[in-house]
């Protein structure tokens, strides 16, 4: 790891620690001020006034899973584009064409997922 990168990491670490502390410290201190009277009814899950009929730990809509899978594929491809994009400005037409071919391949992947019905909310 280069020295510069390490410096950035330490700076961000300090920033993050401050970020965690600023909400957490009031949360801990306010415990001594705020009322805390839990009752059996109060700590029930909210279900518009009736007792919870179905537990929320149950199978959910399949489409979420489909979209998550497609997301991972495209996100990885996007990250690859980030590695290429800063140098494209001074690249030749030939290099630009290569990047363009990559994008067409990504579009092809999207087309495939589309035709397979992965993008349908059924």
């Amino acid at each position, binding site marked *: 790891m280069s020295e510069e990168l*390490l*410096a*950035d990491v*330490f*700076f*961000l*670490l*300090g*920033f*993050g*620690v*401050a*970020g*965690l502390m*600023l*909400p*957490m410290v*009031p*949360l801990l201190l*306010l415990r001594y*001020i*705020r*009322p*805390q*009277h839990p009752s059996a009814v*109060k*700590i*029930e*899950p*909210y*279900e518009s006034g009736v007792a*919870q009929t*179905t537990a*929320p*730990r149950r199978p*959910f809509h399949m*489409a*979420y899973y489909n*979209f*998550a899978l497609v997301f991972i594929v*495209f*996100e990885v491809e*996007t990250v690859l*584009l*980030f590695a290429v*994009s*800063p*140098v*494209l*400005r*001074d690249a030749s037409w030939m290099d*630009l064409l290569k*990047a*363009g071919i990559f*994008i067409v391949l990504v*579009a092809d992947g*999207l087309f495939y997922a*589309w035709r397979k019905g992965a*993008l349908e*909310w059924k």
Partner: protein
Amino acid sequence: MEVNWPGWLDFDWLDLSWLELPWIDTNWFHDNWYGLLLLGFFWGVLVFTMVGALTAVYVYVERKVSARIQGRLGPMETGPHGLLQTLVDVVKLAVKEDVRPAAADALAFRLAPLLVVVPAVMAFVVVPFGVPMVIRDLNVGILYFLAVPSITGVGLLLAGWASYDNYSFLGGLRASAQFISYEIPRTLSVVTVVMLTGSLSSARLIEAQADTTWFVLLLPLSFVIYVVTTLAEVNRVPFDIPEAESELVAGFHTEYSGFRWSLFFLGEYAALTTASAFAVALFFGGGLGPVLPPVVWFVLKTAVIIFFAVVLRFTLPRFRQDQLMALAWKYFLPLSLVNLLLAGLIMKAVF
């Protein structure tokens, strides 16, 4: 690059020598890892306090704007024109009972608000406030800006799951599904800007626009994609289906109350601020502008974009879940791929 601003703004923010404290060796902060840690901590405290204060202002503005649009007066009783209302609300939230459902996962329930608020505020590190003024100019600043606030998506899902509540669960699922769907077109629209900038540093971003012109003129399509997908990312109307109050009560934060609930609010507004600030940096030349100092320009431009988002909230109806996903995957994703190819041609034409 020709930029002029008053002398008092012409200093390196990170180099603390402008404090002119003879007993502090400013190099110390950059030479040691603990110095850097302390410097980061110092900035963290400063930025978080600022965001907290800003959120109070937003809440007031939002209530007043909504009141105007809906033909009401809004808060009027506390202070002149209800100016002190948010302050009183903060006190109320702070001393309110913190109810945690018995069935909730204790650790995840406590962790989720932090996961929402901390990454959203950490994005401030790379926001270019002035022309070269960045809290820390990371060499992967733009990637950092896209990557770190994305952790919020995990926080939303965790909040929904941990609450052990049907409304929360559905809200959390919807929130994360929406978050990941709009992530890709948004990232791709930023990639086009990176192509024109030739760097991932957010300070370079402003310099590149000083050399050419505002990128909104070169990449109007990228700007449209960025704005719409960003509205979805920060769960603003018309994309606020994760917390659609008419069907899901309050979505993923149904079970949260008091101070923990306000953390979600803080995170949402922090995300809106950083996203708007970055929209200005990416497409409107950041602090570039005549006469006024860059910081003033930057704040003005950002305020306009935030105001736009606030007005939009009380103007548009809400999307349905299937429409929302179809819009992201069948319209914005193909559009942003075409936009990438288009941006390549524009880039060749300009440089």
